[in-house]
């Protein structure tokens, strides 16, 4: 059975293609890209962009342990709604993903329940305790694409150094959540004008920047690939730019909420604007956008972090950190980066596909003949309102509810199968 996606603009940053063309798919594989293709089934993509299925190297699907927040099934549905076909899941589940058996569990749940591709990250230290290394070589053999103690930084610099040395030997990147936990302790939002007025215990930017600086310097002496997650400060971007220029193997991601919102979003004590690292200030947004423009920022990743309404509808200080992001990531990138002219559509797609894929060696995020038919079809001009009813996530903790955004996913295909619109 063959399928043709007709009339769209095919954008594949990996090959530099950006032209009106049809895409033919047979047996889950792209078999032709070109004009006037035919097939038994036709998807009309007139006015739409046809690009590689999106890639997100930073999501939390909460299974096992926190299935009331999200499961691999519901998380994958949220991803499909957002145009994603490959995601890297974080390891801070319960139990944490710190051994091959736990990875096999995730792989099995992914095979049985996920509609898109799940590529697990595993803990860098046992139980995420920041002390003993995990068996990274075996973890890699069972499919782990990166190691990380995401959610925490590794407080002991000597342990961090060993983690990087060992991960480098094994050939896995380390995904670094940068935080000096002593400095951030008790904080619930960015330290600045807004936290001062609201009297909310706060997290200074330095808590992130000190750890970021340390982690990159350790990458420099070990030669390891360190990937800095969710950079939120202009200074942090400057530091990364500096070390990249010196040839250190450092890469980084920006999260859509960090280039879309400032700490003003916390003003009404909305716990859906609470995440870690927190929303910063306009100067930081400007710094992140500059970093996206000059290539300092390597990719866009959501840090999709579901929490139930019950957990979030409590006092601001008591609410857990984290927001969901898969359903809104593409539209925020288009609305906040492409529409104002900060970057081109092609670059935006690169940041959401092949660039992240390269960092974790995912072999994804490309649209080429002979490759898997992982495809996202979206209308770049369609406006829509973010609504809970349209979420695939089990949770609803988004600060963008009710917001008008531009750019709507119409179809998501994973290995040739239409996974969005959802079939059930």
């Amino acid at each position, binding site marked *: 059975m063959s399928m043709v996606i007709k009339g769209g603009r095919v954008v594949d940053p990996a090959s530099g293609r950006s032209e009106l063309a049809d895409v033919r798919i047979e047996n889950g594989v792209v078999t032709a890209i070109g004009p006037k293709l035919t097939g038994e089934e036709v998807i009309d993509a007139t006015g739409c962009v046809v690009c590689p299925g999106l890639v997100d190297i930073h999501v939390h699907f909460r299974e096992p342990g926190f299935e009331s927040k999200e499961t691999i099934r519901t998380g994958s549905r949220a991803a499909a709604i957002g145009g994603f076909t490959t995601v890297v899941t974080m390891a801070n589940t319960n139990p944490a993903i710190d051994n091959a058996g736990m990875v096999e569990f995730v792989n099995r749940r992914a095979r049985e329940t996920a509609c898109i591709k799940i590529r697990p990250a595993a803990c860098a230290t046992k139980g995420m305790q920041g002390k003993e290394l995990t068996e990274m070589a075996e973890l890699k053999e069972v499919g782990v694409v990166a190691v990380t103690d995401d959610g925490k930084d590794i407080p002991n610099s000597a342990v961090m150094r060993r983690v990087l040395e060992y991960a480098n030997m094994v050939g896995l990147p380390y995904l670094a959540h940068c935080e000096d936990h002593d400095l951030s302790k008790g904080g619930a939002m960015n*330290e*600045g*004008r807004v*936290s*001062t*007025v*609201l*009297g*909310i*215990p706060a997290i200074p930017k330095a808590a992130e920047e000190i750890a970021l600086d340390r982690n990159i310097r350790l990458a420099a002496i070990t030669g390891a690939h360190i990937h800095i997650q969710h950079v939120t400060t202009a200074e942090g971007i400057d530091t990364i730019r500096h070390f990249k220029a010196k040839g250190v193997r450092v890469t980084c991601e920006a999260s859509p909420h960090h280039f879309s919102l400032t700490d003003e979003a916390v003003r*009404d*004590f909305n716990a859906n604007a609470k995440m870690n690292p927190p929303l910063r200030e306009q100067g930081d947004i400007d710094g992140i956008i500059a970093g996206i423009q000059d290539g300092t920022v390597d990719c866009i990743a959501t840090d999709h972090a579901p929490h139930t*309404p*019950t*957990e979030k*509808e*409590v*006092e*601001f*200080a*008591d*609410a857990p950190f984290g927001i969901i992001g898969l359903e809104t990531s593409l539209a925020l990138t288009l609305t906040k980066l492409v529409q104002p002219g900060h970057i081109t559509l092609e670059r935006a797609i690169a940041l959401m596909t092949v660039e992240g894929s390269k960092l974790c060696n995912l072999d994804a995020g490309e649209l080429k003949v002979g490759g898997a038919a992982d495809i996202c079809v979206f209308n770049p001009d369609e406006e829509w309102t973010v609504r809970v009813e349209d979420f695939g996530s089990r949770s609803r903790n988004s600060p963008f509810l009710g917001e008008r955004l531009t750019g709507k996913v119409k179809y998501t295909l994973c290995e040739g199968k239409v996974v969005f619109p959802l079939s059930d």
Partner: protein
Amino acid sequence: MPDSDRRVWTKKDLVGMEDLSRDEIELILDTAPQFVEVSRRESGIKKVPLLQGRLVVNWFHEASTRTRTSFELAAKRLSADTLSMAASTSSSVKGETLHDTLHNIEAMNTDVIVLRHSAAGAPHILAKSHASHIINAGDGRHEHPTQALLDAFTIREHIRAQRNDPTANLEGVKVTIVGDIEHSRVARSNIFCLKKLGAEVTLCGPATLIPPHIGHMGVNVTYNLREAIREADIIYALRIQLERQHDGLFPSLREYIRLFRIDSDAMKHAKPTALVMHPGPINRDIELSTTVADGPRSIILEQVSNGVAIRMAVMHLLVNSGKRR
């Protein structure tokens, strides 16, 4: 009451001084004197029927004697039924949301809920989605609006008496707040309130207890007590929480006393007309010496009496003029 027709109260809740306009603040201050009079009645019947048949619930998530008693007395003098609830844990610890807890209270058909909570924003979150009138009796380090109102009222009474001008206001009055600003909801509410009324605010205390971004609130900051109080009309000492010392926020009480205590030595550098205030309870001889606390310039006990009148004014305005959903 001047301009009473122009300044109509419409708010359902009192959650913070940040949300009030100068007109609204002055309306509350101008509503209070009649209630001061009620509390001083020679007849002995210190009661008016303005909230008769209404239910006021004092819901205190944090220990408090003074504020809770003051609200309770205010409600009783307005003839309301009152109920006090103390809960030491937050909703999340009990596995409920904040809304669940409030729904349970509201199911008793409450009219006013006076909420003291350890988390900033708790009353704000509830006020938005609940029918009862919510009064913030202190939320975390954020706000304590009735304290700021009673302080402004007390200052205004004294300015009027000193200047022998019954219409004098706080325009240009210099207020110095001394102590732990970082953890103080009293400081934040007072800064909002005093600035809106045209007063000039100076903060003084250890650098570790003054938030680095506080300048954005339009205040002066100094670490030198003498300099801070030299020009002050009002010297406002805050309670220093003794446990802050163990958090490493200042080296010792001894050094705190040396640098920041308001005592007779310090008062030599103040204007002869300067008055001393404190939100209570006082750590005697730590932030305030006994001689000053009990001396002729202290107006601390007036703050307490005025607190009842201000809280009566607030409840009366909210219930009898405020919009209710």
